[in-house]
């Protein structure tokens, strides 16, 4: 299925039917909850138990807001789709909802918000859905107003699905021009499915506190090269004695080495899959009685 962004403008795409579908899908709920939890983690709010006033941009049916409520924060949600907000009302979310267009600016007072999150919303700004829409102006209005309404030193974490590299550059470019410091955190960059991009923006000039946090599942130098020798460790998993046609046996005569197994495991780990830890038993040959 093609991306929702290319099908219709958000206020039309997320109609009553689509809004209900979106919120009744347990898969989407799970993904949204995970994304929001990670976004809150990246927000790095001080851990003093004081509830903060947060902004949820493109809150939709309040799936992400629920995570904020669970963390004890007060939030204000903004969305352009009335149907989505109606579903949010039915779900009795705790935050306040506003029907508004982020491309027109947020319309908040200056410096009052302690942090902002946005889950899968900002890339919509890159589309021109009406003749009066100019993506650049809308991005400028959005980031400009976001910068103004955030308190100094506050963070905004925007999870985005950019269509292309150019689109990501465009979004990031406007964020920087608005005065934000920060960058993109890419979780699981090696996986096509689990790969998620977060714009982590800090209000104010770059400093030590504005360092972009570390991504999950990023490579820490492909390992296993240095630990090659050691006779028991370096055994091969030989499958030549299984009943296989001769031809294939010849190819796999030596079997795959421990190095190969470790490399594969590392690849899977980078993709974010669950992989058992490396032990001395990894890639060890099985006993004959098997």
């Amino acid at each position: 299925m093609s991306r929702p962004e290319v099908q219709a403008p958000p206020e039309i795409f997320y109609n009553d039917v689509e809004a209900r579908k979106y919120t009744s899908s347990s898969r989407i709920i799970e993904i949204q909850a995970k994304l929001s939890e990670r976004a809150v983690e990246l927000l790095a709010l001080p851990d003093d138990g004081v509830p903060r006033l947060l902004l949820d941009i493109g809150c939709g049916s309040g799936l992400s807001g629920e995570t904020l409520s669970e963390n004890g924060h007060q939030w204000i949600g903004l969305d352009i789709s009335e149907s989505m907000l109606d579903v949010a009302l039915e779900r009795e979310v705790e935050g306040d909802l506003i029907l508004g267009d982020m491309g027109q600016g947020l319309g908040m007072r200056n410096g009052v918000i302690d942090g902002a999150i946005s889950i899968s919303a900002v890339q919509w700004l890159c589309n021109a859905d009406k003749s009066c829409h100019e993506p650049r102006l809308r991005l400028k209005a959005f980031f400009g107003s976001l910068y103004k309404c955030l308190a100094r030193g506050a963070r905004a974490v925007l999870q985005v699905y950019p269509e292309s590299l150019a689109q990501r550059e465009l979004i990031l470019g406007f964020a920087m021009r608005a005065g934000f410091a920060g960058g993109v955190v890419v979780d699981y960059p090696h996986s096509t499915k689990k790969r998620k991009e977060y714009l982590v923006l800090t209000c104010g000039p770059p400093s030590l506190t504005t360092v972009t946090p570390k991504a999950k599942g990023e490579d820490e130098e492909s390992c296993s090269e240095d630990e090659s020798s050691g006779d028991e460790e370096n055994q091969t998993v030989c499958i030549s004695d299984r009943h296989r046609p001769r031809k294939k046996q010849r190819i796999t005569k030596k079997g795959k080495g421990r190095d190969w197994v470790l490399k594969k495991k590392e690849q899977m780990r980078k993709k974010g899959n669950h992989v058992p830890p490396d032990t001395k038993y990894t890639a060890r040959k099985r006993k004959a009685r098997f």
Partner: protein
Amino acid sequence: MRLLTHNMLSSNIKGVTNGFPLQIEAVKVVEKQVDFNPDFLKNMFSKVDWTALAAASKALGYADLPEAAGADMLDSDDFLRRFHHALLQLHLEEGALVCPETGRRFPVSKGIPNMLLHEDEV
């Protein structure tokens, strides 16, 4: 919509220099119970525009807030309770918000203010 949100919202119409505070036309007001959290109130106090909050709570029919407030009043439990009630428990369910400069009405229905602007207002 709670007064917390009202206190943060300002009119976003092109050319408006001071779109705050939005005047409230209340048709229906409801009260919802919210857990009392003094830490949050103390944190919010510096951010809330008190004159706007007092005027807004009056517009919703709650006149127990003092006209002016200082940080020293935050020690009083009675004051915090009133602040809490006005800020978080009063909801504007139906009505409108009016831009103080242009008089443009933003309708509020089911507790959701419609802040969408027309093409010529952006």
